[in-house]
């Protein structure tokens, strides 16, 4: 490790990778907690601590130990024969993505970190070998996800909040109905969480195994536990407040899960390019897939955790508070819907961005007349930021790459 750091380019890449991890924490990681914060289930301070710890755990323990050096095959790596190009390109892509994430965080815009790094990679790829290096089929999938993610998120959240309202809030005695129905909803949410744990955290492939082995076990367990707990000690003078109190506790768990899963997955955005350079430094060649040493994963996880702590609250503020005033049932519906969409879509091979799905879900709940006010201006800003993420990251990466090629 020490002698590796004496390689100046690897050292620089790791430094930029850490910066990227920090930016991911700053922008993306906060999304997992923001609905819980917005609904008042936890304070921002608690959110920062929970998210920080879980993001690190997810990244370190469950981050992919073998990572694709060129994320999602967005450019054709076989066209790059010069190892220096991988080194300069990785630095350029990381730098561009993290600068864009930093900018987005500054303005409280939740953008996709995956799309940022894809933009960075496409940028240096085009500068090096022209547009033919880009896998445009993959690129079309990314673009499709800008539209699909929020739409799916909105549709599912609309249906979920309507069903939650029908089964609980609109009943004669909301608290009694909540005692019956909340365990069902909590159970269903845990079916999704259990399945997601297998696919996203343990990187399993089959949706069937995910649901039958992990999902059902988690779901039935959660149903039984919540059913037993709700049979006693639910007293409230205001029925709606009572229902919210029930869902408040669940929301902490769903958010915590999102943070863990995010750490396991998105750490690759920061360490993927680092791993590529590491492969060049240790083996002298550019490969598609390389094993990633644990300490690089740990650094990525640490970077994300620090990002959450130092800057994450900014984005929590946007999703949780500036878009809409959330209650716990609505926050639960959003988390549950977003997780379901991401689970189903990723097992069907559809490109879906969690960030975009969450924002779509918030709008879906709004369309169901579930929330009292959504700030349209902020929504507009967010959508624009999605569309410019790839081009902006690509342009910055292209420029940085060009400079590095001339200087280096």
């Amino acid at each position, binding site marked *: 490790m020490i002698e590796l750091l004496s390689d100046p380019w690897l050292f620089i890449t790791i430094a930029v990778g850490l910066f990227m991890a920090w930016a991911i924490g700053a922008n993306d990681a906060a999304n997992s907690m923001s609905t819980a914060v917005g609904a008042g289930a936890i304070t*921002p*301070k608690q959110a920062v601590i929970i998210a920080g710890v879980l993001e690190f755990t997810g990244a370190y323990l469950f981050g992919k130990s073998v990572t694709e050096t060129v994320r999602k095959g967005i450019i054709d790596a076989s066209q790059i024969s010069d190892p220096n190009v991988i080194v300069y390109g990785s630095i350029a892509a990381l730098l561009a993505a993290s600068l864009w994430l930093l900018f987005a965080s500054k303005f409280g815009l939740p953008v996709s970190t995956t799309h940022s790094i894809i933009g960075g990679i496409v940028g240096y790829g085009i500068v090096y070998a022209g547009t033919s290096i880009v896998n445009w089929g993959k690129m079309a999938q990314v673009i499709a996800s800008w539209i699909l993610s929020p739409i799916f998120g909105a549709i599912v959240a609309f249906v979920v*909040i*309507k069903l*939650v*309202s*029908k089964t609980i*809030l*609109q*009943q*004669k005695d*909301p608290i009694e109905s909540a005692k019956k129905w909340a365990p069902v909803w909590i159970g269903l949410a845990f079916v999704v969480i259990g399945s997601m744990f297998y696919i996203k955290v343990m990187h399993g492939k089959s949706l069937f195994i995910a649901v039958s082995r992990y999902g059902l076990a988690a779901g039935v367990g959660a149903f039984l536990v919540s059913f037993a707990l709700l049979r006693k000690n639910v007293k409230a003078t205001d029925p*709606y407040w009572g229902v919210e109190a029930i869902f408040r506790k669940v929301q902490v768990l769903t958010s915590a899960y999102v943070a863990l899963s995010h750490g396991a997955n998105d750490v690759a955005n920061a360490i993927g390019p680092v791993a590529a350079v590491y492969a060049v430094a240790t083996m002298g060649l550019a490969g598609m897939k390389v094993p990633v040493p644990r300490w690089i994963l740990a650094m990525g996880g640490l970077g994300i955790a620090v990002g959450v702590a130092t800057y994450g*609250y*900014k984005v929590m*503020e946007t999703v949780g*508070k*500036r*878009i*809409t*005033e959330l*209650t716990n049932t609505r926050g639960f519906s959003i988390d549950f819907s977003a997780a379901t969409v991401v689970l189903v879509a990723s097992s069907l091979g559809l490109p879906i961005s969690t960030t975009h799905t969450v924002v779509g879900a918030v709008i879906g709940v*709004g369309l*169901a*007349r*579930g*929330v*009292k*006010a*959504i*700030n*349209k*201006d*902020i*929504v507009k800003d967010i959508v624009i930021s999605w569309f410019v993420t790839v081009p902006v990251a690509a342009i910055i990466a292209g420029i940085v790459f060009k400079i590095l090629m001339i200087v280096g």
Partner: protein
Amino acid sequence: MQVWTKLFAKSPFKPLIKHAEVVLEAVGTLEKALGAWERGEYEKMREYARRVDDLEDFADRIKEEIRDSLSSKLFMPVNRGDILGYLEMQDKIADAAENTAKWLLVRDPNNIPEDIKDEVRTLIMTMSQESIKAAKLVYEAIVQMDRVIESGFGEKEIEREYAIIKEIESVEHKIDELDTRFMEIIFKNSAKMEWGLGMYLLNIAKTISNISDKAKDAAERIRLMMNK
């Protein structure tokens, strides 16, 4: 972390409820002023009347604030225009109370012919009690509207809301009848009064009945909010 509370996308319903509270207080203070009149405590009456004026001012300021914050940037479960229309009507309730208060400040209601004095007073008092009831119901209606939204437009909560609206309408109807009777009495006895007193009394009755008119209009607006 102050940033958290600063940029809050507020729902207009809490401020609307606050505004309704102030309106209710204005109408309640007017009732106190009329009570002082009944007892012949004119100094007290004027004091209360001036207080109504202050409360109307306060309601106006809240109204302006709500208007400013209700930009078209917000996407809400109820129509923005309906909310603004409702606010306008709710504010007019306070305006109507202030109008009555103004008449009370213009002159003291002495020299009412002895034979109708009691009936005039009782009618005015009944009307003012009914109008405070109307204002209270409007307050309940907007609180209930908040619950309608909270329940995701649940049937049960909508039913409750309609019940409140119906009650407001029946109060308004009752005050209308009282107002008509009041006018009849004044005109029947017009020969016994100087014209100024007649006009004074008629206007007090008219402005009080206006309170419930506006309450009814506000209820009508709430009905619109539920029928998106």
